[in-house]
């Protein structure tokens, strides 16, 4: 017993030793990338956020403590940008997920055409992030754009979408919701994995369509809803291109997304220290929101063990 255990130990030691090496060889690109492109930038930005580093003035940046962070809350545009970003996230993400789930549900039929339909519905996601389509979107909601033409045809008044600070965000929200494709495909995959027997049992018990959806489909999908919710929330917080190209943050900062404001301070005004403080503040907010989602998910996500 002792002997075999010992030889096993020696063998496994050797084995582990080899695995250690192989593992690091394969993981090397990530280890390098993580240190150089995530860890070091994040740590330097923490340091710079405590300085008055500016690209405009030469010389060493001065250490100014938490002054940048205090200034953030004096900065009206900054406070506004948080409001705008939160509004954008809280409207666009739930709408997008609901829409993606709706379309995925619609396309669960057993038909050969369904794959074709899914491809069709994926097109907005495929092209929606491009500058090309963003410029089209700008044109669609222009004063004499397509959307207003449609409204006039329906007997409504044309709306000056990008001229009104309270309305300008909605075309951007709509554009984000429109790109529901990748969430849809992930939902569709999840729907496919729900066993048919669950539905049959529910039908025998006399459940109607809505009940079945609420009691079976949604709980079975909940891990996937969680995944989509987190990924979409993070990407919504990063929204930049749309705001930069369509509105430039205006009118009256009504579409001043967080990422856009960071960009303006860093690249346009050269206030690197201040921009770093903004990034760190954002990191904290994002972490809190992700944490809240994870914590609450215990209450609504069902795993197979339940």
């Amino acid at each position, binding site marked *: 017993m002792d002997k075999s255990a010992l030889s096993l130990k020696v063998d496994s030691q050797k084995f582990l030793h080899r695995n250690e090496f*192989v593992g690091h060889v394969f993981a090397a690109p*990530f280890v390098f990338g993580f240190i150089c492109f995530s860890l070091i930038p994040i740590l330097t930005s923490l340091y710079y956020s405590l300085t008055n580093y500016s690209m405009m003035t030469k010389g060493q940046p001065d250490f100014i403590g938490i002054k940048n962070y205090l200034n953030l809350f004096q900065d009206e545009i900054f406070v506004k940008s948080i409001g705008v970003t939160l509004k954008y996230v809280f409207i666009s993400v739930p709408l997008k997920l609901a829409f993606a789930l709706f379309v995925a549900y619609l396309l669960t039929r057993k038909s050969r055409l369904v794959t074709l339909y899914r491809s069709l519905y994926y097109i907005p996601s495929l092209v929606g992030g491009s*500058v090309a389509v963003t410029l089209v979107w700008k044109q669609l909601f222009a004063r004499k754009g397509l959307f207003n033409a449609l409204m006039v045809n329906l007997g409504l008044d044309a709306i000056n979408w990008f001229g009104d600070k309270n309305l300008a965000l909605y075309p951007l929200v709509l554009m984000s919701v429109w790109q529901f494709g990748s969430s849809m495909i992930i939902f569709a995959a999840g729907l496919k994995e729900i066993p048919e027997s669950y539905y049959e049992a529910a039908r025998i018990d006399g459940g109607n369509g809505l009940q079945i959806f609420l009691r079976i489909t949604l709980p079975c999908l909940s891990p996937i809803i969680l995944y989509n919710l987190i990924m979409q929330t993070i990407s919504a917080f990063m929204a930049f291109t749309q705001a930069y190209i369509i509105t430039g943050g205006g009118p009256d900062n009504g579409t001043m997304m967080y990422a856009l404001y960071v960009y303006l301070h860093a690249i346009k005004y050269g206030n690197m220290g201040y921009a770093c403080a903004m990034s760190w503040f954002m990191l904290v907010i994002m972490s809190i929101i992700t944490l809240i989602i994870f914590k609450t998910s215990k209450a609504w996500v069902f795993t197979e063990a339940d």
Partner: protein
Amino acid sequence: MKTTKSIKKIAYHFFVVAFGFLMVYPVLWMVSGSFKGNAEILRGGLNLIPKELKSSNYATGWKGFSGITFSTYFWNSLWITLLATLGTVVSSALVAYALSRIRFKGRKFWFTCMIATMLLPGQILMVPSFLIWHKLGLVGTYVPLILPYFCGQAFFIYQMMQFMAGIPRELDAAATIDGCSKYGIFFHVILPLLKPSIVTTVIIQFYWKWDDYMGPLLYLSDPKKATASLAIKMFADSASTTDYGAMFAMSTISLIPVFLIFLFFNRYLIQGIGTSGLKG
């Protein structure tokens, strides 16, 4: 009974197609706009068929601005995208293999780091990364737009790990018995089976990178080095009155590579994510 069923079926297909048409309408409108005159576009008609077909938009657009034609921009975009996509696929597959198949000390730690990177919004890193590249004197070159992609992209590593979890470990064991090393298992067992996941990665990374605007905006200021996405925006801003027809023409061309890749591989994309299912 049977007729109501087939009526329902027809109604379903009609609804799905009509709704899908509505979804892609903006894209179709852009393509049709590339054949319209400026006046017609600005009038804001809903029609997709131009009153008079004007193909000169393409020739005008291709000339570009300040003496640089769109061939330069498309070429820049193409090789940056191809390199970055290649880098993503190769490095992500390697890392995914290490994290999902090899039990080494530090695996848990690096896995946690990988998830953390995935949950980290890239814009947080925008300013500090820019500063570091600036310090290294590489702002204005293509290096910041390509090199990071050779270090594995967390999102794709995660996708590939999910996929690898579905590849039976017995295959590894059998290969080991046949005298295959860990390196051999990767190349001869895992890699061939990983194809659907690789194709998904290629499509998604290709169009993400092709569409990327912020990266080139930050790092490329020389118009000669600009990518298509950057150039289209500059084109829209260049003249005092934008030539919308030409802009839409160049926009349309800029979407062709993305569509080609999608058409070629979409079967894998639609099924690939499906089989890489997210469990737990």
